[in-house]
């Protein structure tokens, strides 16, 4: 039965694209979650929704406008955080609602929701074309290569930005590079689970992976494994039950998180570190 499902071209493309997207979301997500940027994916996805609406409104391929608008949205978010005293989560909220508002205006101006727009909102992994699959593979290879080369720099930036500056890293440039990469990751991944569920793939596998209490590299590998398991099983289960793959993928990822929490609480996964942020504090 599984072999029969795998014999279909659309399933093969869905699995290839899904696994690739799972890998980039979990890798990028490790840094986003640790920087307390968990909702960055949500914010950028909503900006991308505005970008898609611009594309549909102008009659341009919507994914390209989504990429452009999202990258500018990500850079704007970073600038908002750096130049003002607006905190990270508030900055995400401002950018999120701005993107959504522009999207809603353009959608209403162009005569309401279309099938294309729905596919971006809720994902359409089973409908992706050969060209889409090749594009997802190409962009993802670039993202994974960049993250692998820059992982130490991004890890230090995530750990402590001021200390990163003092060891000679160009933190402003790195921060902008980081948000551009994250924006590209989000837009590339939207075809899988859609605008509304993209944060799940970025956040949930990483929260589960961090429960294992390992170092950085092992945590990334565990997160990627959880992500791939969720995507593959989600696509297959959705095929057999004839339900939406995006929702199924996320429900399975949440199930793995709950299972990991249970294993932790029963002591089967080592001690759990639930405590206040570690700090060495001396008053001056």
């Amino acid at each position, binding site marked *: 039965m599984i072999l029969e499902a795998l014999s279909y071209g659309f399933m093969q493309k869905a699995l290839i694209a899904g696994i690739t997207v799972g890998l980039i979301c979990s890798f990028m997500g490790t840094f986003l979650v640790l920087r307390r940027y968990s909702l960055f994916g949500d914010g950028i996805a909503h900006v991308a929704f505005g970008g898609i609406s611009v594309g549909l409104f102008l009659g341009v391929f919507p994914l390209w406008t989504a990429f452009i608008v999202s990258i500018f949205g990500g850079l704007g978010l970073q600038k908002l955080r750096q130049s003002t005293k607006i905190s990270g989560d508030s900055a995400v909220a401002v950018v999120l609602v701005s993107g959504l508002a522009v999207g809603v205006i353009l959608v209403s101006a162009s005569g309401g929701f279309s099938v294309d727009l729905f596919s971006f909102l809720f994902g359409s992994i089973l409908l992706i074309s050969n060209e889409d699959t090749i594009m997802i593979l190409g962009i993802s290879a670039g993202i994974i290569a960049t993250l692998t080369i820059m992982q130490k720099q991004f890890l*230090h930036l995530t750990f402590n930005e001021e200390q990163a500056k003092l*060891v000679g890293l160009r933190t402003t440039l790195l921060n902008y590079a980081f948000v551009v990469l994250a924006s590209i990751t989000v837009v590339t991944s939207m075809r899988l689970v859609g605008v509304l569920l993209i944060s799940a793939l970025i956040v949930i596998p990483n929260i589960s992976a961090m429960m294992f209490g390992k170092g950085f590299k092992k945590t990334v590998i565990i997160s990627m494994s959880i992500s791939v398991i969720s995507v593959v099983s989600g696509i297959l289960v959705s095929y057999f039950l004839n339900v939406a793959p995006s929702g199924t993928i996320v429900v399975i990822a949440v199930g793995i998180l709950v299972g990991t929490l249970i294993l932790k609480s029963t002591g089967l996964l080592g001690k759990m570190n639930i405590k206040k942020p570690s700090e060495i504090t001396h008053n*001056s």
Partner: protein
Amino acid sequence: MSVTSVLDVKDLTIKYDNQSAVDNISFDVQQGDCLGIVGPNGAGKTTLFRAILGLQPYSGSIKLFGFEDSKYNSIIPLIGYVPQKVTFEPNFPATVYDVVSMGLISEKRIVQGVKLIQECDCCWNRIYQTIKKKDDKITQALHTVGLESLRNRRIGELSGGELQRVFIAKALVKDPLLLILDEPVASVDVESQTKFYNVIKTINEQNNITIIWSSHDLDAISKYANRVACMNKKIFFHGEKEKFFSDKELLKMYTESSMQMHMHNHDTH
């Protein structure tokens, strides 16, 4: 160009909202010095360090190895800095090894800084050990602070004293020419404090690393520093520690200003 001191601070003033945090101070630090900076809470010690590290705007002049302005920034990676407060996620997925290796991320810029100093025909006849493998450097830094056995331990699982030593190892791993420690043992138990002071003594005397170190612990300063600067926004004393500790008037002034600041803080809270 001839370099005469590691650090040369002249007429330095730092203001927050028109209030002086550091008020027109001048002092210098020579190679091999272990300068203890004492002063009450709010005396401007951390602000001074942040200015030296290029993190704080100021008026006046700060020269590092004789350099200022744009070249100054090239020298900053040669400073090892241990801040008084480091906050991170308790589940941050990094081991002791990962954190110490962060000190070597920008090795190219460290080498550039060293070349800049060596080109100026100065007294820093220090051979930078670039040929050493990164792993060997990290192992050596962990050995210096006595943490080899914890290299694969996650940082969230360490005690305050162990964490302190991890950040010192991170500062040491790049062979710094200057080490700045901001109240490094204030929240560490007595046993860890003794270990820490021994580490400081070793790296200052054996590795000839210049150290600037702020503390409220006059006993430790008298034991491990060779020079003392006493500040409370202004510098009241800067010189040999023997002179500071033999001058009862100075000690009295330090104690009184500490007490005044303590009472002021108490009133405002």
